[in-house]
């Protein structure tokens, strides 16, 4: 599949082997070519797919070294001064190390900074718990003025990056790190706040988001039969209308996410359903615990039953 290569001149990457973060970087580079205000704010992780930007736009590749509080504060200052910064670092460093700078400098002032978080979830399998971000969505959702988006694949990550830029307000992009199977055709438009029904069904609704997880859920749904699958890339503001409509029709909802079941997509869905369409709900995600075992990403997903088989097993156990 080379849908993105067809989309525009100048962009050439194979979505099947491209990570969401890499696609986000490519979108940033394209935006930088189109808009002189775009800058890349870095905290010494530029070699994670940022080198092309550094090579092509050295004056706009602003590295602050291993100093996230300063990088986040400066990103806010750059935005207040008329620039359009993308802040590129690991999700856990931006949203937890520098949480208060994100809260006050970016969110309070509604500074148009796009925080591109990589190594989110447990994708950093061998790196260990210091590099996992299993609570980032919970932190991000609680911050006023912050839009939270977890794209499902490289194509959606590219489109979501452009949408986040156009949004002109604080956005957190949750991008994982591993290339995952593709879900989207490049020609589908991305709209912040809109979920998408990927598969229609009547017995159960599965709401999900994120790289690798969405395709795993789709595989599980094939085996489960008559179930609906909704991709909900915008976790905040969540597509309440779609959620309520689907839940009211199927009468049962499962959420699947690569995040703690506290505060993430499952919680966001629970909040909506409890108030607007109370139906039985099962949240599938990571337990409220640090992930101490290391392993490759696929093995980690198996361990936490977030692969297709694990999701199928958990759903069957719940509905039976």
């Amino acid at each position: 599949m080379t849908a993105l290569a067809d989309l525009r001149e100048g962009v050439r990457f194979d979505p099947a082997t491209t990570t969401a973060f890499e696609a986000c970087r490519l979108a940033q580079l394209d935006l930088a070519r189109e808009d002189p205000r775009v800058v890349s704010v870095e905290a010494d992780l530029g070699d994670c797919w940022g080198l092309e930007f550094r090579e092509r736009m050295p004056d706009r590749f602003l590295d602050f070294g291993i100093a996230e509080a300063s990088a986040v504060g400066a990103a806010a200052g750059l935005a207040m001064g008329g620039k359009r910064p993308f802040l590129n670092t690991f999700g856990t460093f931006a949203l937890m190390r520098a949480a208060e700078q994100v809260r006050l400098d970016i969110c309070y002032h509604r500074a148009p900074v796009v925080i591109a978080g990589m190594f989110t979830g447990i994708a950093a399998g061998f790196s260990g718990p210091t590099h996992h971000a299993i609570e980032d969505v919970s932190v991000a959702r609680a911050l006023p003025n912050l839009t939270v988006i977890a794209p499902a694949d490289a194509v959606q990550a590219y489109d979501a990056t452009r949408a986040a830029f156009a949004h002109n307000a604080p956005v957190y992009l949750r991008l994982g790190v591993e290339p995952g199977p593709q879900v989207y055709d490049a020609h589908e438009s991305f709209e912040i706040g809109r979920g998408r029904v990927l598969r229609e069904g009547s017995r159960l609704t599965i709401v999900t988001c994120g790289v690798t997880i969405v395709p795993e859920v789709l595989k599980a749904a094939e085996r489960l039969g008559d179930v609906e699958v909704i991709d909900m890339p915008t976790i905040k503001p969540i597509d309440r209308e779609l959620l309520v409509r689907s839940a009211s029709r199927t009468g049962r909802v499962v959420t699947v996410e690569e995040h703690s079941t506290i505060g993430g997509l499952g919680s966001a869905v629970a909040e909506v359903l409890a108030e607007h369409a109370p139906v039985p709900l099962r949240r599938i995600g990571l337990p409220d615990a640090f992930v101490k075992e290391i392993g490759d990403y696929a093995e980690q997903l198996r361990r936490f039953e977030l692969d297709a088989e694990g999701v199928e097993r958990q759903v069957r156990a719940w509905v039976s």
Partner: protein
Amino acid sequence: MVNDLAERARTLRKHVVHLAADSPGAHVGGSMSVVEILTTLYFDGVLRVDPADPARPGRDRLIFSKGHSSAAYYAALAEAGFFPVSELDTYKKTGSRLAGHPHTGVPGVELATGSLGHGLPVGVGLAMAAQAQGLPSRVFVIVGDGECQEGSVWEAAMAAAHYQLDNLVVIVDRNGIQEDGPTEEIMALEPFADKWRAFGWATVEVDGHDVGELSNVLHEVPLTWSRPTAIIAKTVKGKGLSFSENTNAWHYGHLSADLKQQALQELGGAS
């Protein structure tokens, strides 16, 4: 001119007294110590800002990072014409925009501050943006000395020197006393000026209550091309009132009617 500035400073101090007496309380110590710094910036033609158009593009930016000293800051903004002086009476009252810590809902306030250690990193970003766009805008950041115990201050100090931000000026209100006691007892900062020099800043120490000295330096910045400027303003915590000078007892407090009267007398009569 110096006499005019001294008179301005006295006016600001009287406002601080009123705010600390007519509200639940104010950060008296740090407000009194920063008065001449604010006076020189706003009333000696240093800051290129327009109270009639606070968001004018290309303006200088003042970031008041030691936001707890809002009483002095609001007094300066009001006297400079950003909002009516009469509005000072609403300080920390229900419905007022004059909160204990400044926020951008107040005309002239560039950054919501009070959580310490935020001003300098944001100032770095603003200075970089101005340089990249070729704007004449300069960024002045007023920080407290205790605030310089925050690591983010030094992260930003590194970045400012690295990016050669000679349009960035930090002014440290070096009053030597933080909430719990003398800085050198709580968490020593000395050799303080040497630290800034070591981080690559053009650094100068001045008497932070001498408006003439402050004026000379502030009109001279950048002190060295391609380097950010650090002005260590040596001040007295609680300056101007016999009972509040050089003590952390008046880091924060409410002035009783008696103390208010005494304070105004010490400052040269009621206003």
